[in-house]
């Protein structure tokens, strides 16, 4: 019960995000209108994905330093939750883009680079699948995971900053700071990031437990 406090926190935060995010008063903006609420359900997924993939990368570094099967399992499960959040982020973004930009895929640099990032991590899963020996799989996929995370940073944060994006906050569009003068959006956005991240960690811990049981079963 005491150990699981963060799961209750996660449920409470996400309830707050869903109820507050849909019902609260939001700033009125041209074109965006009510779709600005997607900040909580789309934009908040990306920092969560980065945190999950960072945790996965840290476990991989840990595995390289001191090999242990638990660390490898954790790295792969956190990467899987990160990929899930990335896919959800792309899907929610595409629905939003259909209504604000006119088409689901508009060739926006952030959109393209997020898709590339998912390809890199999909390759991580394929790599894991094609190595048979467990120890070899752990070590080699840990190396690839570190390389993948190192490529992710320029891909998602440096390259899109160089070109104009259609996203709010770049290319002359109003940014978070301009829109959110009285911090109303922030009051839901930050809890949303924490809530989604906790949900991702929850998924990962469940995955780790299943994997550990399967390993035990195989022994």
């Amino acid at each position: 019960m005491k150990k699981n406090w963060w799961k209750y926190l996660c449920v409470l935060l996400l309830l707050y995000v869903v109820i507050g995010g849909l019902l609260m008063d939001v700033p009125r903006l041209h074109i965006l209108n009510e779709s600005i609420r997607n900040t909580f359900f789309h934009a908040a997924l990306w920092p969560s994905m980065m945190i999950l993939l960072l945790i996965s990368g840290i476990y991989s570094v840990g595995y390289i330093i001191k090999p242990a099967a638990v660390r490898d399992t954790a790295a792969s499960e956190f990467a899987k939750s990160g990929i899930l959040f990335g896919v959800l982020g792309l899907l929610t973004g595409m629905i939003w883009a259909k209504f604000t930009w006119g088409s689901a895929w508009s060739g926006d640099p952030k959109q393209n680079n997020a898709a590339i990032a998912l390809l890199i991590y999909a390759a991580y899963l394929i790599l894991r699948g094609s190595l048979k020996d467990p120890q070899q799989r752990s070590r080699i996929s840990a190396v690839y995971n570190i390389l993948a995370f190192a490529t992710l940073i320029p891909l998602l944060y440096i390259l899109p900053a160089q070109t104009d994006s259609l996203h709010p906050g770049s290319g002359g569009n109003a940014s978070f700071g301009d829109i959110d003068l009285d911090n109303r959006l922030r009051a839901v956005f930050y809890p949303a990031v924490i809530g989604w991240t906790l949900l991702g960690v929850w998924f990962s811990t469940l995955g780790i437990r299943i994997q550990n049981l399967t390993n035990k079963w195989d022994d």
Partner: protein
Amino acid sequence: MLFTEISGLLKKEVKIELRQKYALNGILLYLAGTIFICYLSFNPQTAQLQPVTWNALFWIILLFSAVSAVAKSFLHDSSGLMTYYYLVASGQSIITAKIMYYSGLLIVLGLLGFGLYGLVLGNPVQSPWLFVLGIILGSIGMATILSLVSSIAAKAQNNQSLHAVLGLPLLIPVLLMSIKISKNAVDGLAWSSSYDELAVIASIDAIVCALAIILFPYLWRS
């Protein structure tokens, strides 16, 4: 000590390449063949290529030539040879030598490709030195990523396709920056307008090189 090791390994790579000329000739033929196919497909006698298309096509040709050129980096080294390396050299010097050798090879391929491509498809580049610098920085990045990926793929089954699957998405940041730099060179913009891109690609190269040198010894043990 480390320096002599690296230079020895580098000499060995060059010697093997010159001894087995079929690999080098094969990749040169691949490059020339692809360029000629592009020339025939676009039929530039009647239709002039747009600079954007010209530039993108050049980098795609270079990308796939690089993938198949570096694919043999570790895939073709037999396990006996790897054991021998393990006994006589450190992991760091092996990957450094591979990166240096394949960077050199890709730079030569890129420059030859640029020459031939410009010859058959026309050369709209207005500031050639910037274009060449783009080729050099892009080649170093591609060689580093592909060398590391090749050593990963060599451990797995169906390694030829895995090499491409792992390598292509990782190459995209380097490729995008190179395309942007060479587009600026084609348009003849001032060097100062490409400083940002040059800085980004140089730092990606540096990060990937450092990671390859740190991580390779762990890959190699198995």
